[in-house]
């Protein structure tokens, strides 16, 4: 078999090579070496994109499953397989991405036996694990078919409905819970995004992006593999999408208003620009476009609008996880983080293509080879999208790089006025006991913290601690040190040199008591 070299294949190869090298670095040198994460900014691109966006983009699986199997709308059956494939693939990639992000990937199974039901993350871990299993089962008939395994096929048919319901329930839980994850950081997440309603926003936006992804995939498969395009089905989804986007928009603005954060929307800040990128270009515009019948029924219009929804969704998740959490912190992903994320996307595309090729994913009818799909139709809108999102991306990058000036304006410290001065009114209530040196035949020497502090005008600990002597909770009461060692500059002699305190050469009896 000869593999044709195309532009996209070369790009994919380069990405995968970079990703492979980054992976090697990740698992040999640790997170610090391959990410720009820090104690101040512990979650970055891998959580924001690979996990939050990844789980969302795979939401088509449960949305379409619910439409087809629960609402019994059989016309959508023909697109249920590609969405199932995307979901299964998506969750596999998310699970792998989590292995990259957590510090102890070999312990990824811990939440299964080590419980903490109060943790959102615990719930998400359980849901994702179970849902991945459900997806594998839901997907299995496609593989059984391929190999004509009739018995397991029959078993699967009997348990299919409960399985679908379980899958939808699990999706409802974890799609929303990914939003709940951020409900515990009211002081850290910016007002445009923080809300106790986050789980609801995450859930609704997951449904909308699930529908948009279904439209998007159908178009890609149509262009790339010449698969039949069921326009009337997709137009039906688009109508649902309009309603869901509208509901989202209303809830979002109502929430901002009730929480008193509406003014933030109209201030010109990096955050508000990205908010408008997300809401204006990613929710409002596609809602209007899809509402217009002339746009909705055209391939280009449909595809363009779906793409807007997807981009808006991606921006939303990145805004919640990165933009909204930045404030005074600094974070911009390192090349290795980007390389690994891009590798996940690339692997996703490749496996999807292979599955479409070797499994029965799309309806079998193919397009007449003599009458290929008109490829140029989406050319113009593609360029428009690229332009628009180029601007938003540039904004994102500038925002990330503009860290220096953001660090300039933290709290203008009010002049601090003290009511007391601990150094003036010293009280040493917890000084160690006296240290007695009596091993020498020169007489007993007693070191008293109290005397040393009281005899000095401006008492401090620094001359001796911790350079000469460690602070020790249980100070040695005896010391084997004898004779001249004590006189040297490493010990008493450090201060008793005639300038800081009387010299060891004179006044012997002041210390050496008979």
């Amino acid at each position, binding site marked *: 078999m000869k593999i044709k070299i195309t532009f996209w294949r070369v790009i994919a190869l380069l990405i995968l090579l970079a990703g492979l090298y980054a992976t090697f670095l990740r698992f040999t040198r*640790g*997170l*610090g*070496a391959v990410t720009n994460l820090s*104690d101040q900014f*512990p*979650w970055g691109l891998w959580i924001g994109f690979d996990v939050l966006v990844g789980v969302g983009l795979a939401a088509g699986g449960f949305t379409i499953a619910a439409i087809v199997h629960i*609402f*019994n709308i059989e016309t959508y059956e023909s697109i249920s397989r590609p969405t199932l494939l995307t979901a299964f693939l998506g969750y596999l990639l998310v699970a792998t991405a989590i292995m990259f992000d*957590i*510090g*102890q990937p070999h*312990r990824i199974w*811990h*939440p299964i036996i*080590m419980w*903490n*039901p*109060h*943790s*959102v*993350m*615990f*719930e*998400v*871990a359980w849901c994702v694990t179970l849902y991945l299993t459900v997806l594998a089962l839901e997907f299995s008939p496609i593989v059984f078919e391929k190999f004509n395994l009739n018995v397991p096929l029959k078993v699967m048919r009997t348990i299919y*409905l409960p399985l679908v*319901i379980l899958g*939808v*329930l699990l999706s*409802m839980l974890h799609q929303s*819970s990914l939003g*709940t*994850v951020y*409900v*515990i*950081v009211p002081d*850290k997440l910016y007002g445009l995004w923080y809300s106790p309603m986050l*789980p609801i926003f995450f859930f609704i936006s997951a449904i909308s992006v699930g529908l948009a992804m279904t439209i998007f995939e159908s178009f890609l498969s149509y262009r790339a593999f010449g698969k039949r395009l069921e326009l009337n089905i997709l137009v039906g989804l688009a109508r649902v999408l309009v309603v869901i986007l509208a509901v989202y928009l209303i809830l979002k603005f109502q929430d901002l208003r009730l929480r008193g954060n509406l003014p933030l929307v109209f201030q010109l800040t990096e955050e508000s620009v990205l908010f408008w990128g997300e809401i204006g270009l990613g929710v409002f515009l596609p809602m209007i476009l899809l509402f217009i019948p002339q746009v909705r029924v055209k391939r280009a219009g449909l595809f363009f609008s779906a793409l807007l929804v997807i981009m808006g969704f991606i921006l939303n998740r990145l805004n919640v996880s990165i933009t909204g959490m930045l404030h005074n912190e600094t974070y911009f992903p390192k090349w290795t983080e980007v390389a690994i994320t891009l590798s996940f996307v690339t692997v996703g595309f490749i496996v999807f293509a292979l599955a479409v090729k070797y499994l029965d994913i799309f309806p079998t009818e193919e397009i007449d080879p003599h009458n290929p799909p008109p490829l140029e139709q989406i050319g113009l809108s593609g360029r428009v999208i690229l332009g628009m999102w180029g601007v938003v991306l540039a904004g994102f990058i500038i925002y990330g790089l503009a860290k220096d000036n953001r660090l300039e304006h933290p709290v203008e*410290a009010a002049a*601090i*006025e*003290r*009511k*007391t*001065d*601990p150094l003036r009114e010293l*009280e*040493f209530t*917890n000084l*160690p006991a006296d240290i007695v040196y009596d091993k020498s035949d020169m007489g007993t020497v007693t070191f008293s*913290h109290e005397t040393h502090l009281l005899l000095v005008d401006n008492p*401090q*600990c*620094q001359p001796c601690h*911790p350079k000469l002597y*460690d*602070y*020790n*909770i249980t100070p040695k009461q005896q010391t084997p040190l004898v004779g001249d060692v004590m006189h040297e500059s490493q010990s008493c002699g450090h201060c008793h040199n005639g300038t800081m305190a009387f010299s060891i050469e004179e006044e012997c009896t002041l210390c050496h008591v008979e």
Partner: protein
Amino acid sequence: MHPQSNSEGYAILTDLTKCIGCEACVQACKTINELPPAEHPSKLSATTWTYIDRREGVNIRRQCLHCLDPACASVCPVAALHKTETGAVIYDFNRCIGCRYCLLACPFEIPKYEWDKALPRVQKCILCYEKRVSKGEEPACTAICPTGATLFGKRNELLDVARQRIKDHPEIYVNHIYGVAEAGGTSVLYLSDVPFEQLGFKTAQTTPYPQLTWNILRHIPTVVSVGGVGMLGTWWIIHRRMLIEKVNNGELSEEEAFGKRGETP
């Protein structure tokens, strides 16, 4: 949820009017926890669990506040962090998967990560739980403090001490004990002669942070049961209507559609 919601358990009271910034506590902490030494550390890190934050003459000893209802412990998916009866919030590395949700969730930004290690740990003050407090000794930092600026004791007793100090010297102290209510109450308390906001203390909410997420999580059983029944019901109704429609259209016989026992359409 609230292993420590009463005022029992131990605590630390740090009185900023008595701290001379000698760093004995910082060094003692480093020694007992076998952390690499550092001269005048200026922030918390995986290897510095307490430090002196110097702000225009005020010395503020920063450390984990050991919340009564800690956000870090509540978010941990594997319960690697937990509040003990002594008051200490401690960490079990053997459970930790390294998700760093604790770093994100802590309102005081206390837990730190060993970013440069291949198998990194979360690090923070554990109130000398293993080495001293569980053996009935006070933590290294309070034991060594020469001025008694940082004290160890029962939380309710330390609160009494703090209230008495404010009462005795209202001209010196700000009338607020930081940690009495912040984040639902903490086991590390502060007294100050300068308003806390000016010293970089977070004005944290007074309801415990874990309640924010628990208010949502506790609805899960309802969502699951109502959702499950709702979906099954939806399927049941729609499916039956479709069968009836098929029977009426003559596509299926009644027996094929509803079985022998039959259910009149």
